[in-house]
């Protein structure tokens, strides 16, 4: 088990290097270190000496990929790409254009993101699975068909609509909750309720359909027929057999997104003024702050890969047939 995890983590390294290569190329395709220096030094008289000293200060004076001045292995390692990648791998994200430490910004903003994303995720998981089980119990009935039509309709409405309509109804017209803002601790619950509810509702259509199809796939299996033949009630069959066997495909889909919950939701956070990583990213995109975007891309990939590893591990815990090798 331990050796397996180590191997998976080692396998993640080339992927992260690939991610770095992509972002690095995107980054330096648009602005060379010279451009960066010019932008940072401002519109003052920018002399070549000033640019050179700025680049030396920040370590941007090295060539991008191959250093022809160095010998042997240093020709590859003593370059901007390797230096920058090493910095990212040690989670040193550097400074944003506004000269703030990106690493501490991220640490600070992770919690508000999680305060929205985690409740949304949990409540959505429980509601979607229970609704799907209900529909499977009454499969083929009027309830099932009409709910499936409603689910398609919920899926077909833009998520932006739910947010705007929710804000207008619950905050502007009925004054149940504040329209936006954030507060840590229990006082912040009133800010969290609306985004969480909207997040759950917006995902209910796709979620219920997905879980329903998983359960329906199970319900035609032989073991279900055997369970019914034993004389088990339909409810017992559903919870004891269908739900348990459906857990496996559910795990694949669910575990992989758990680490990504830290990243927060772009749209939700910016509409509700939540100082999380999602709104951080949006602000960075709008102000074209590439250093932050780069850091977020790296963080997102790391979290996704952690999710993949967690999925594999949870497989072994829940499915005795799967053996790690």
């Amino acid at each position, binding site marked *: 088990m331990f050796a397996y995890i180590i191997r998976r983590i080692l396998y993640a390294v080339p992927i992260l290097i690939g991610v770095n290569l*992509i972002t690095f190329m995107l980054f330096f395709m648009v602005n060379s270190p010279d451009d960066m220096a010019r932008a940072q030094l401002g519109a003052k008289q920018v002399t070549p000496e000033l640019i050179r000293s700025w680049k030396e200060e920040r370590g941007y004076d090295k060539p991008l990929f191959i250093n022809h001045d160095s010998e042997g292995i240093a020709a590859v390692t003593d370059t901007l790409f390797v230096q920058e990648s090493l910095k990212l791998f040690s989670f040193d994200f550097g400074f944003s254009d506004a000269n703030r430490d990106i690493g501490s910004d991220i640490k600070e903003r992770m919690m508000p993101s999680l305060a929205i994303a985690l409740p949304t995720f949990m409540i959505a998981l429980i509601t979607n699975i229970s609704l799907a089980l209900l529909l499977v119990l009454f499969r083929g009935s009027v309830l099932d068909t009409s709910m499936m039509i409603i689910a398609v309709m919920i899926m077909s409405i833009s998520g932006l609509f739910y947010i705007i309509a929710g804000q207008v109804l619950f905050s502007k017209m009925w004054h149940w909750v504040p329209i936006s803002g954030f507060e840590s601790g229990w006082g912040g619950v009133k800010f969290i309720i609306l985004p969480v509810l909207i997040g759950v509702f917006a995902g209910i259509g796709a979620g219920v359909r997905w879980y329903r199809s998983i359960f329906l*796939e199970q319900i035609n299996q032989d073991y279900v027929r055997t369970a019914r033949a034993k004389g088990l009630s339909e409810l017992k069959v559903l919870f004891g057999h269908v739900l348990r066997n459906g857990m496996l495909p559910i795990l694949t889909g669910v575990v992989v997104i758990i680490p990504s919950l830290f990243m927060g939701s*772009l749209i939700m956070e910016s509409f509700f003024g939540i100082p999380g990583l999602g709104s951080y990213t*949006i602000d960075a995109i709008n102000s074209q702050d590439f250093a932050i975007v780069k850091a*977020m*891309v790296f963080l997102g990939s790391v979290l996704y890969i952690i999710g993949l590893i967690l999925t594999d591990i949870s497989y072994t815990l829940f499915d005795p047939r799967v053996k790690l090798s």
Partner: protein
Amino acid sequence: MKLSLLWTDIMVWFLVISLLAWSWVISRSPQVKKQWHTIFKSSIAMASAIVLLFYLFFTLLDSVHLRFSAQSAESQSQTVQYEGEMVSLLDLIFAHNLKGTERTYSAPFATHEYAKSIIVDKRGTTRQAYLPLKYVSKSDDLMKKSLYAVFIGLIISSLFILLHIFWRNRDGFWNEFKKSWRGETLLPWRIAYLTVIFLVVISTWFYMMSFNYHVLGTDKVGGDVLYQSLKSIRTGVLIGILTTLIMLPVAVFLGVSAGLFGGWVDDVIQYLYTTLSSIPGVLLIAAGVLVMQVMMDTHPGWFETTLERADLRLLFLIMILGITSWTGLCRLLRAETLKISQIEFVTAAKAFGVGKLTIIRRHIIPNLMHIILISVVLDFSGLVLAEAVLSYVGVGVDPTMYSWGNMINQARLEMAREPMVWWSLFSAFVFMFILVLAANLLSDRIQTVLDPRNKS
């Protein structure tokens, strides 16, 4: 006046022509034809397909661009404003709306502006009043005009329908007509005709009303919301279909070669898509769009007009979306190819010495068709919705381009006004909802019919 097509125009027409060619090819294969018959036996699928065709029709109308030369501008005074600018057929049809730009907000069917403004009368006293709209000619008899519009719509739609019945059965026209009327045809043509009548009547009514009113109101700078919503159709549909067009060859090529050749080819391709899919989609798109923005700022010579600039940006956006979205399909195709290449008929073909390319063409691709088709229709609705979100984030289409995302983005602050300005948002959401709903319903049907797992 001369025809001048944008890059995306060329692509969308190419796509339509290849779709027609493809449907001609499949109409010769009885097996596939039967499958499509089964799909359209469902009246929901039929109605959805008609709605999608309707949207496609508007897209195509908006994808024929004309450039008026300076000469014709002299001879025809009303075309002066088009000089050097490119206009589409849709712009020509709605020329009256283009000219009729008001000062500011007005509600649907309003005759006066939405907010009071301060006016100074002759005696020098100031007062607040609702100013009348400039380009609204209040029609006294709304009812009569509506009935007239409905009548025209009925005539147009029944012409289409009669032509179609005639095309279906040239000899027994009357017989066929009766059968369609009673709903006894093999395919649910009655539903199709009803949908056509409904859509055509509604759009004629909207069009005829648009001469007298701003049917869906006007936005902050007085632009007609109906016109904006119609123009946005092209953007939405284009992003939905062209992205798949770009992504499809890559996904199929890489997926099939990974599954068929195995070894290091498989490793490289797997590494490629794992890397790409591990980057959060929106961030990769955002990074790509930021790069593109800087590149377009440094190369102003690439385009002559703002329209061409917006078009180029749309094209880049579609490409970036394509690059980020091929990984999912590629993974599916790889797995399926792996499965198919183990089946006996492929082994037999290999044993007979059939070439690799022939095996791919004759045995692999036809068996992958259902996966490709399902993912294309499933992606379509997702992409239309994604456009709105991306435009909101600021990495979507050009801000000067008409799109539902831009409409929502510009109008979302209007909800804070008192009283609310709801019509821009409402129109954008409704137009988007109908398109996405139709696509989702059709894709559901295609999935149930084509997916072999649903055979039981």
